[in-house]
């Protein structure tokens, strides 16, 4: 018993099997995490090495280069970049996508073991740091406070930070902008000198007094007691009475004699302002692999509880919640899918004209789609843009199989079969072609699962999902659909009156359309060469006209409503000035974009240590870091990029600002960020490359296509430096590191010990009085004690002078490099930016040993383009093979595959008309079209061939088949196109991401289908007539040969016999 026969005869089993699949599918759906894009495993590993005191060039030669040379041989390495700055070397390894990062990390570790011994002695052991997208904060909270400001850190750490960190999946919680309590011991240098005490001695004295020691246990009689000595301070004031030294006359010197103890806050901290009010910022980073949306939801649920535990003046708020955008995007995509489903059902109803048939189709669509959730859940996938786009594309395709079966069953019923018999035999007749059309689709989508690189990460899920959906939909069409047809369909003996009044006009229109198409086709096949050449010329002209208007980019920019901005004032600007400018900008932006900005947060000042988030970004008294959240994209008039461009414009006009960077989406390039053209200048000579980079950056800045240009190498920044004379140091029995530590302890401070109170620990820091470290003279007069106890002043050991910071040396693929990045203005494509930049470079006279390369997104884009074209060719070949096998012919697949170039022309034309860029998403559309567009050709050719086999002539077959197949072709095409329209015109959040996909599918499919309807019958007749001519010729030669043979048969036989006799 075949599958369909069994299903029709066992309706309960069949329907319950599918009900079970639906239940498991819905269960999986409820468990699926939500994300923006499929989980992309990180492909970066950083190797950090500290070599204290070494200049950047020394670091480059002694640390970075040996490490680079060794690591260069690690497998699957794509790029090796490094930065060598003062005291630190960071080597970043970028791997090809799709390899297990843990294995790669082990390889890197093995190689590092080899190189460690070759590094300088003073150099610390290199350590490995895995960089991933998880480091990007998922939620930023603000806490504003008035009276509680001073104790804000402790309040937040205990009541917000710790509970949040306990949430499953949360990695680190950092608090910025709230200073920590610190006990400062301010030393008076003059008194210190008088009593002959040093900072070091004081800090040692404090450390050795602040101690609890367990002295073991001892026995008294029959009992054992433990002995403890408790010396830890109960209050900071106790420290006043510590004896730190003895004066020459033997009198004790107490700490109170030389220092002042202040129980206050850290000296240098970052201040954080939210909507103009000072407070703190709480940054939540997730654990690797955890789901942002789930965590964000849990945090949201937790917030009201946390708020209750806080003092009344501390108010929590949300600055940035990355999950908002994800949720909105996924919601609007889900809405799109619902619309698509509705459209598809409508189309089916209009074309089939039967409500029962429409209901059957409407039931089968969700079945195949829901089954794909099981796949997603089983493989640990998520609901994301790619998987949901996939559903949207699939809707139009899953109905096809069901429609084919349904149509044939209906034909059988109309011929008089019993529905049950009609279902079995009707399905039997089309089973092969249903399977063949699924194979065509699988030939398209299966190769997607084999792509490597970034494109592969995106396409893998899509490929597998489509394969699963297509397979399920075929199984469904061959089992569930016949079963439900047998149950629901019946011969329509008399349509109801209401139905007739409603449907009659549609019916008439479709009939007229059929007739008109048949007339047109009849004329076309009789002038086949003229029609074919005009179709080709039209395609070439349209393609040629639209091609120059199409620009390309890597990924569409996603309007996620976030802006990150870093504004740098001239080095050395005081933090108060930065604060004032930040406030001015905030006010101006709030006024300019009323109702568009949700939250503006900014941080100013030097971040303290122990703030892991701040340590990832640069901070300083002259740097302002903005974080803004806008309302969601469909609720504001201005796009994210337009707002960013205006902000840049405003900032660039402020003379106080030295440097600025406004990043749309909070990030640069990559997926969804604002597109930027990146040029890498390679060359050893720092001055040469500096000049070229500057020249390129200046030309780019003058071009309106770029809104922001950044040079990766930092400027030479002014600073003071103490230059010790090594001879003088040695004379006093000192060395550089001891002397440097002395200076550091006096300015930055020495952490003597930790003061414990209520289970919390606070640093006790010993340093100079703030007023005693405000001038160069203060530094020069610092007393350094030699091993013999004699004091020497800094000015006697060296000089304090103004200098410049050495630039950080960047290298890429073992060559020195500086990069110039230009962010593209709104509406200007990446490819155009690259073109402009390349022109500038070509006009420059580059020295012989300097080369310039395009990198960044453009490089990724080129990689992706290469991957996609290979994929495209592979897919076309596979589709051809499947079709050739189905038709057992090479001619028909050739005719059908010609639809693909027409579809490409359609894509180009619609992209050009709508001004959409060519990018990964539109490329994805083009690849899928290869499978969808040939389906129409298959339907047409298959039926024409059928007509031929039934004994009709070529022309008659073509016209008859065209007329008969017009509706199915239009129906399947319209279901796919209408399924895509909500995507192409959608205005929901994130719509800009999938719009190119929708546009390319619509453009390609509509043009491809129209062309198919014309050229396929024409080509069929051209090949047919040539076949006839060839057959006739063959027959004629055969006949002539035959006649000749018959006429000369006797003579030939006689000759042969005679010859034999002679022999």
């Amino acid at each position, binding site marked *: 018993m075949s599958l369909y026969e069994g299903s029709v005869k066992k309706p309960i089993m069949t329907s319950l099997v599918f009900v079970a699949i639906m239940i498991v599918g819905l269960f999986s759906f409820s468990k699926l995490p939500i994300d923006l894009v499929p989980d992309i495993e990180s492909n970066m590993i950083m190797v950090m090495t500290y070599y204290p005191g070494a200049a950047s060039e020394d670091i480059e030669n002694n640390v970075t280069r040996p490490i680079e040379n060794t690591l260069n041989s690690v497998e699957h390495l794509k790029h090796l970049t490094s930065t060598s700055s003062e005291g630190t070397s960071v080597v970043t390894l970028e791997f090809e996508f799709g390899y297990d990062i843990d294995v790669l990390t082990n390889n890197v570790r093995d190689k590092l073991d080899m190189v460690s011994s070759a590094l300088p002695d003073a150099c610390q052991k290199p350590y490995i740091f895995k960089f991933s997208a998880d480091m990007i904060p998922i939620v930023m909270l603000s806490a504003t406070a008035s009276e509680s400001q001073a104790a804000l850190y402790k309040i937040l750490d205990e009541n917000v930070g710790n509970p949040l960190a306990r949430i499953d999946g949360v990695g680190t919680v950092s608090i910025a902008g709230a200073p920590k309590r610190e006990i400062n011991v301010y030393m008076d240098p003059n008194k210190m000198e008088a009593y002959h005490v040093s900072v070091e001695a004081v800090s040692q004295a404090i450390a050795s007094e602040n101690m609890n020691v367990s002295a073991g246990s001892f026995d008294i009689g029959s009992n054992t007691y433990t002995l403890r000595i408790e010396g830890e301070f109960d209050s900071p004031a106790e420290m006043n009475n510590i004896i730190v030294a003895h004066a020459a006359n033997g009198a004790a010197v107490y700490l109170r004699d030389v220092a002042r103890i202040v129980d206050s806050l850290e000296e240098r901290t970052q201040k954080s302002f939210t909507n103009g009010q000072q407070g703190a910022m709480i940054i939540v980073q997730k654990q690797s692999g955890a789901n942002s949306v789930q965590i964000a939801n849990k945090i949201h649920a937790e917030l009201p509880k946390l708020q209750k535990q806080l003092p009344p003046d501390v108010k929590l708020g949300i600055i940035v919640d990355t999950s908002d955008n994800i949720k909105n995007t996924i919601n609007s995509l889900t809405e799109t899918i619902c619309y698509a489903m509705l459209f598809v059902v409508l189309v089916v109803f209009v074309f089939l004209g039967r409500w029962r048939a429409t209901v059957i189709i409407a039931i089968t669509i969700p079945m195949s789609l829901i089954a794909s959730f099981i796949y997603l859940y089983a493989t640990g996938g998520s609901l994301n843009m790619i998987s949901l786009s996939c559903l949207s594309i699939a809707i139009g395709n899953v109905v096809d199989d069901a429609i084919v079966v349904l149509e044939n069953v209906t034909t*059988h019923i109309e*011929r*008089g079969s*019993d529905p049950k*018999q009609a279902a079995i*035999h009707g399905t*039997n*007749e089309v089973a092969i072609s249903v399977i063949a059309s699924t194979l065509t689709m699988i030939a398209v989508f299966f190769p997607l699962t084999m792509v490597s690189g970034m494109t592969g990460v995106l396409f893998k899920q899509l490929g597998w999902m489509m394969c699963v959906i297509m397979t399920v939909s075929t199984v469904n069409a061959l089992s569930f659909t016949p079963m439900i047809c047998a149950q629901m369909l019946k011969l329509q003996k008399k349509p109801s009156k209401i139905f007739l009044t409603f449907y009659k006009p549609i019916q008439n229109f479709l009939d007229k359309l059929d007739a008109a198409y048949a007339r047109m086709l009849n004329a076309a096949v009789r002038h086949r060469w003229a029609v074919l050449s005009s179709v080709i010329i039209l395609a070439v002209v349209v393609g040629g006209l639209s091609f120059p208007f199409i620009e390309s980019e890597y990924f569409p920019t996603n309007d996620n409503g976030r802006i990150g901005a870093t504004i740098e004032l001239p080095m050395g600007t005081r933090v108060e000035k930065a604060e004032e400018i930040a406030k001015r900008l905030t006010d101006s932006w709030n006024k300019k974009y009323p109702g568009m900005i949700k939250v503006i947060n900014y941080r100013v000042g030097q971040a303290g240590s122990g703030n892991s988030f701040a340590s990832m970004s640069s901070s300083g008294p002259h740097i302002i870091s903005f974080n803004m959240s806008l309302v969601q994209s469909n609720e504001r008039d201005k796009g994210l990029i337009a707002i960013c461009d205006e902000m840049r414009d405003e900032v660039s006009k402020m003379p106080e600002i030295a440097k600025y960077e406004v990043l749309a989406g909070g990030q640069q390039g990559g997926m969804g960020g604002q597109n930027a053209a990146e040029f890498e200048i390679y060359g050893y000579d720092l001055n040469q490359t500096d000049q070229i980079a500057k020249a390129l950056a200046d030309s780019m800045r003058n071009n309106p296509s770029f809104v922001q240009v950044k040079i990766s190498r930092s400027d030479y920044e002014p600073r003071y430096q103490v230059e010790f004379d090594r001879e003088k140091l040695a004379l006093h029995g000192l060395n550089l590191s001891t002397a440097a530590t002395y200076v550091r302890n006096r300015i930055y401070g020495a952490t003597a010990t930790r003061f414990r109170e209520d289970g919390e620990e606070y640093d006790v820091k010993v340093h100079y009085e703030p007023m005693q470290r405000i001038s160069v003279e203060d530094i020069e007069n610092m007393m350094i004690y030699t091993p013999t106890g004699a004091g020497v002043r800094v000015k006697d050991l060296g000089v304090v002078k103004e200098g410049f910071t050495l630039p950080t040396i960047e290298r890429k693929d073992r060559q020195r490099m500086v990069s110039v990045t230009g962010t593209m203005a709104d509406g200007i494509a990446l490819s155009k930016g690259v073109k402009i930049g390349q022109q500038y470079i070509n006009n420059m006279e580059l020295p012989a040993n300097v080369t310039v390369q395009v990198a960044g997104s453009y490089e990724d884009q080129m990689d992706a383009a290469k991957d996609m074209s290979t994929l495209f060719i592979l897919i076309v070949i596979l589709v051809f093979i499947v079709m050739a096998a189905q038709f057992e012919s090479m001619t028909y697949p050739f005719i059908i595959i010609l639809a693909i170039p027409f579809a490409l022309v359609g894509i180009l034309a619609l992209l050009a008309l709508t001004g959409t860029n060519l990018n990964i998403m539109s490329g994805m559309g083009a690849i899928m079209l290869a499978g969808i567009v040939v389906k129409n050709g298959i339907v047409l050719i298959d039926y024409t061939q059928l007509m031929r*086999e*039934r004994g009709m002539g070529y022309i008659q077959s073509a016209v008859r088949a065209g007329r008969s197949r017009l509706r199915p072709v239009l129906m399947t095409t319209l279901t796919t196109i209408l399924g895509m329209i909500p995507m192409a015109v959608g205005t929901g959040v994130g719509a800009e991401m999938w719009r190119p996909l929708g546009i390319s599918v619509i453009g390609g499919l509509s043009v491809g289908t129209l062309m198919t309807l014309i050229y396929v019958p024409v080509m069929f007749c051209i090949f047919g007539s040539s076949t006839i001519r060839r057959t006739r010729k063959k027959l004629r030669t055969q006949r002539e040969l035959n006649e000749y043979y018959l006429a000369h048969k006797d003579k030939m036989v006689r000759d042969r016999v005679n010859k034999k006799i002679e022999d």
Partner: protein
Amino acid sequence: MKSVMIMYDQAFQEKIVDLLTRSNCRGFSCFPQIQGRGSKTGEPHFGTHAWPSMCSAILTVVEDEKVDGLLEKLHAMDKETEMLGLRAFVWNVEKTI
């Protein structure tokens, strides 16, 4: 005794077996999946790409008086759905065991 050979589109299968049962014609032999073509308008039943449908045939031997009734019912069935095609032929049974 007469033998009735019924040739029909395989969609009739259940209906015909049902008819035979109702007409008290218990014994029959069925030839499923056979190819054929009608003499005048009958569509070919070849099970090929061009003509995908197939026929079946049933040979039943019945008492003489049942033949007319059976043929009438079969004819009615054929008239109802002429597109499918159903024919019956009757001939004598000389001997049986």
